[in-house]
């Protein structure tokens, strides 16, 4: 059967007001000449390792733990570890072609993780970095420029284009019209805005929408924890480090265990967290008003809601007496937590829907967690990780195996 040519006609190339951070001189026509590669190609692993080494030479990296973490992630040893998990069967895979990444505006280093997923899966990558300027982006960009000047890495470097432009720009339409996969970070309203731009018929979007996350703590186990300050630090990293505004940050704390233990555990848990938050965090004045407003809103709409008295506005705790289905709507940022005492994890099955992303936990056996998922079969929750690990990047995110998603299978019989 004859088929007509692609329905979506590539948009006019118009790079007015588009800043090319990498490479400085960009030629679209030669960019798209490059072929896809198999996932975890040696070239991609060597390139990322070179980038990691280059980043570690930059003195500024010390001021940016997020860049340091990224550099650490790119090490050969780490990537090989991922490769080992990936190398299955004799399936032949190649990258899908061109990936257009739209990075979230408020997390400086996220664009780089998105990019390495695109590189490791064997693709060409156009990455739109946040329009807001971040030092972290400059550091990573500089390292990429330096690596690209070594002849050895020059060909692989040409698989990357980093662009920056303001929200309203025809470049989004153009890049969308030529991509094989479009990755949209940033939440529901960004996704809606970006989706106005058409992609070719066989292309698809990988979207990272607004999500809701929660944390479950077994009080019986927690009270015998010998370093509760470490758990507090982990929880701080999960929440306050990104103003409790990352999709992975818990808003609801589920307490499991005997009730007399729970009270004790709460005292230790919040007490330790408070010591840390007091030293490291400052609540912006308008956020203090937000927290109070969020609480009154919650008190009006849900039954039996009580504010737990805390010394100040750094930590707001709201005690729930039952779990309402729409609990995820009652949240704030910068340290506002609802708490509920549950008889078992299974109580969560009535509230978990597609919005739920990360369940962080303390003192719960892996077996119990598997039992919970296989028996309750919730529509939501894509990740279950210990407290402190919620923001750790992984090649599996939001329920997608990104390497598999961004590559295609070639069936040979």
């Amino acid at each position, binding site marked *: 059967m004859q088929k007509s040519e692609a329905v979506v006609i590539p948009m006019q190339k118009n790079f007015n007001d588009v800043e090319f951070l990498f490479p400085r001189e960009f030629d679209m026509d030669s960019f798209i000449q490059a072929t896809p590669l198999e996932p975890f190609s040696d070239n991609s692993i060597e390139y990322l390792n070179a980038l990691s080494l280059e980043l570690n030479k930059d003195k500024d990296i010390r001021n940016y733990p997020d860049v340091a973490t990224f550099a650490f992630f790119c090490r050969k040893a780490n990537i090989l570890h991922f490769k080992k998990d990936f190398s299955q069967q004799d399936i032949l895979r190649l990258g899908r072609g061109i990936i257009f990444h739209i990075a*979230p*505006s*408020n*997390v400086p280093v*996220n664009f780089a993780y998105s990019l390495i997923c695109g590189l490791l899966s064997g693709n060409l990558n156009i990455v739109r970095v946040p329009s807001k300027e971040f030092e972290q982006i400059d550091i990573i960009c500089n390292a990429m420029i330096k690596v690209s000047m070594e002849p050895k890495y020059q060909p692989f470097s040409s698989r990357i284009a980093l662009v920056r432009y303001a929200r309203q720009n025809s470049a989004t339409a153009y890049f969308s019209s030529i991509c094989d996969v479009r990755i949209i*970070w*940033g*939440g*529901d*309203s*960004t996704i809606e805005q970006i989706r106005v731009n058409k992609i070719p018929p066989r292309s698809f979007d990988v979207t*990272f929408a*607004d999500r809701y996350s929660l944390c479950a703590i077994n009080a019986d186990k927690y009270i015998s924890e010998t370093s509760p300050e470490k758990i507090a630090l982990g929880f701080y990293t999960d929440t306050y*480090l*990104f*103003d*409790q*505004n*990352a*999709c992975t*940050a818990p808003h609801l704390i589920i307490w499991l265990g005997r009730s007399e233990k729970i009270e004790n555990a709460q005292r230790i848990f919040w007490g330790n967290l408070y010591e840390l938050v007091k030293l490291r965090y*400052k*609540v*912006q*004045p*308008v*956020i*203090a*008003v*937000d927290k*109070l*407003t969020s*609480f*009154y*809103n*919650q*008190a*009006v709409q849900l039954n039996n*809601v*009580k*504010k737990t*008295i805390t*010394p*100040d*506005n*750094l930590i707001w705790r709201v005690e729930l007496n039952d779990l309402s289905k729409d609990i995820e709507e009652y949240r704030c*940022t*910068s340290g506002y937590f609802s708490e509920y005492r549950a008889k078992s994890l299974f109580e969560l099955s009535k509230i978990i829907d597609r919005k739920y992303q990360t369940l962080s936990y303390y003192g719960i056996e892996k077996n119990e967690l598997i039992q919970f998922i296989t028996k309750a079969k919730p529509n939501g929750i894509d990740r279950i990780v210990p407290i402190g690990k919620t923001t750790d990047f992984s090649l599996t995110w939001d329920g997608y195996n990104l390497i598999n998603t961004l590559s295609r299978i070639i069936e040979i019989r």
Partner: protein
Amino acid sequence: MDIAELLIIPPYSLGGNEKQIILNSFLTRLTRHHYDNCPAYTRMMDGIGFDYNKDYSIAELPFLPVRLFKMFDLLSVEKEEIVKTMTSSGTSGQTVSKIYLDRETSANQTKVLTKIVSSFIGKQRVPMIIIDTEAVVKNRNLFSARGAGILGFSMFGSKRIYALNEEMELNTELILEFLENHKNERIFLFGFTFMIWQHFYKQLIEKKINLDLSNAVLIHGGGWKKLVSESISSYDFKDKLQKACGIKHVHDYYGMVEQTGSIYMECECGHLHTPIFSDVLIRRASDFSIADIGEKGIIQVVSVLPFSYPGHSLLTEDEGILLGEDDCSCGRLGKYFKIVGRLKNAEIRGCSDTYAEKF
């Protein structure tokens, strides 16, 4: 003590202790009234741990963020009792606050406003020039805090004209004729700060119009946000107006639709004053404790007036500084303070972009 009794007392005549005692009992009573009659308020107070039987001081009383009036219809009387609904001046698309007034609350607002303003312009009604266009009050679609403000202050005018036409151009001839007819009388000018600057002052200068307003009193409100962006200070505003038309008595006021009536007038020393009907508390954002004199914080306003809606103790989104109490050189008793501006929008990290649309 009730509002009728308060109205007999001159508005700036009570010292701190005396005023405190009156407001404490007044506001505790109001809190109980709203607790008994506004179901949403009951739930809020139960959530925050309000003790119905305790006698609260105003510093201990719970306060509601003004934003809640955008999110809920809050009223403490039967719906049939409502005679007027005030809305905040949100631009199109924004949600607006809705304030429900019964006859008594509305009447008390008028009485209290009269009491406060007449202590600045005298008890007699005087010829009044409204520095705005009549369209604001005529056109119901435009009717908002601006229209309500004009109507509220109009009762002080014996005769009234609007200084601007619908195109916001100065009605020069009308104004000159009005001034000629009321040559030796005190004239009352009223308008919104930015309108006065943008459409009155600027036209006086551009068109080289000569007005003699040396015997006039100007009262203006509505905030400084737009003038701050033009780098015009309160001092510049007064100074330039005086040079342009000779006006010497200029009083800013701070007020909001959520507490209409009990406004805070600026005295001759440039300080905003609390009358006996209301008070201002400056709170620290870190823990909502009371800030020291001279320390910047979030402004809380309390007022004895709100009976039909639970707006007697409100946390605004403005920042201010308490300058002193009972010792302003203008001689008025009560606290005096200044406004710093609106709370800055939050800059927060994280991948979610829904924050701004939440409220």
